[in-house]
């Protein structure tokens, strides 16, 4: 089985560029002809992860692996880490500053949305060291429609 690997360095200093990498991945997935719902799930889950990385961790790296059955997104940052993961998973909970909220972010939907759109989520975080989030999205076989 073929696996396509993509790598993105996420610049944490420029808000306006957050979402660029997930946009690129969406375009690639469309060219691959993946199931439409899987494409949506990947682009939303990855977008939320990418935004989080910029807001909270000053950027990081995203590795995406795509096969015909599974898309795996690994978001790695060296930010402050998440103190209480179960609290962070709650809808509406956010540690974002007022500054960030004024830009329309920080609604406390980032991690909950990742969970909603992903099939599997694993969060590995250590305060003061950083966070790695692994998101898996299953790709249904859409060749039957063709």
């Amino acid at each position, binding site marked *: *089985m*073929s*696996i*396509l690997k*993509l790598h993105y360095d996420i610049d944490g200093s420029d808000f306006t560029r957050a979402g660029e990498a997930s*946009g690129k991945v*969406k375009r*690639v997935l*469309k*060219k*691959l*002809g*993946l199931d*439409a719902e899987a*494409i*949506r799930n990947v*682009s*939303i889950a990855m*977008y939320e992860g990418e935004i989080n990385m910029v807001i909270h961790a000053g950027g990081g790296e995203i590795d995406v692996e*795509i*096969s*015909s059955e599974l898309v795996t997104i690994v978001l790695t940052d060296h930010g402050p880490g998440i103190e209480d993961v179960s609290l962070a998973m709650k809808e509406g909970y956010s540690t974002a500053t007022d500054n960030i909220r004024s830009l329309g972010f920080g609604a406390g939907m980032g991690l909950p949305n990742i969970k909603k759109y992903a099939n599997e989520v694993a969060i590995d975080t250590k305060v003061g060291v950083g966070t790695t989030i692994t998101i898996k999205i299953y*790709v249904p076989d*859409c*060749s039957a429609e*063709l």
Partner: protein
Amino acid sequence: MNVLNHSVRLDEDKCKGCMNCIKRCPTEAIRVRNGKASIIPERCIDCGECIRVCPQHAKRADRDSFDILANYKYKVALPAPSLYGQFNNLDDIDCVLTAFKMIGFDDIFEVSKGAELVSEATRLLLKRGELKKPVISSACPAVCRLIRVRFPNLISHVLELNSPMEEAARLARIKAVEDTGLKPTDIGIFFITPCPAKITAIKQPIGLEKSNLDGAFAIKDVYPKLLAQMNRLDVTGNLRDSGIIGVGWATSGGASAALLRERYIAVDGIENVIQVLEEIEDEKLNNIDFIEINACTGGCVGGVLCTENPFVARSHLQHLRKYLPVSCNHLEGEKVPKAMNWDTSLKAISVLKLADNVEDALDLMKELNTIAERLPGLDCGTCGAPSCRALAEDIVRGLALESDCVFYMRDAQGNPSFQGLVPPPFRKPPKKEETP
């Protein structure tokens, strides 16, 4: 459906093979081959951007000649509301409409009448709450085709109602048959169009098996004929039968304002349109009721077959509005007539896919990424493709060669005089000696 039936055409003699059109095409549908632009028909959405940017005027919209009027016993003109915005100091739409009767038409039926009915039907459907939100307007055919090619996931959001043009044509034919007693086929219904996308929508209808129109004339072809007559009009007929709502459709925001709701977005200009469609796809606009989308900047007044600048045209229309009632056309019994609904939904066209199955596509994408990394990333367009990535894609599809890249050839030749070639520095004129 014949996807080759486009109205955007190339005049090969005029084309110099420059890079302007390939860079502006929103679906990357143009390549330069053998020194001439060549349109990939499956990808073209007839938006007219290439016509707009071609410095040689080598791109044109294929439209009907006035000779075809002779094929019909009774001719009806359907002016788009954007036509009214072309005239300076116009304060009575009846002047324009009366002039049509002096240039070979027997009757007129304003597209703005159709627009008012479509607005009312949309209001009713939104109120019923059965549509998938955000609802995407379907009046701009270039947008419908863009969705079909680049955003097939959004097809279920598209409003499946006739465009004002089609609705007006449908009613115009019924009226003409009633007025004259002629057979429907003896009646010619002609749209006066601001854009090539609408011409294609007649030849290749969207949502309908067959268009209700028989042809289209460009605003810029009709404008001088009308103006000549308007200047010598003594009496004007009482022909106008639409108001602010219908005429408002000429500019971006008009169709939205007509819905009398506040949660809407009116987006225009192809780049903005693509960004908003991306946002709908990523479910960032789920709190919006309605999205009015026009491919041209400013809305229909920005169409490439208009004569006036879209912002000036908008100002002309603001002046006209003062003398108009709100709306003149209403649905009977507050019901959406069956004939106003589409026969068929939009069908996705999967031209962007690299291969029919994901496994093959993955292999091609890997190869594409490797090639793209080797290319210089200058997006100069000299190879005939709009960007290095587009060339890489053409290569893996077997449509181009890596040696089509001039920089690849330079490096492959190993010519030291070309190695590390960069554009020249700023050239300054020699300094003149300052006089004390």
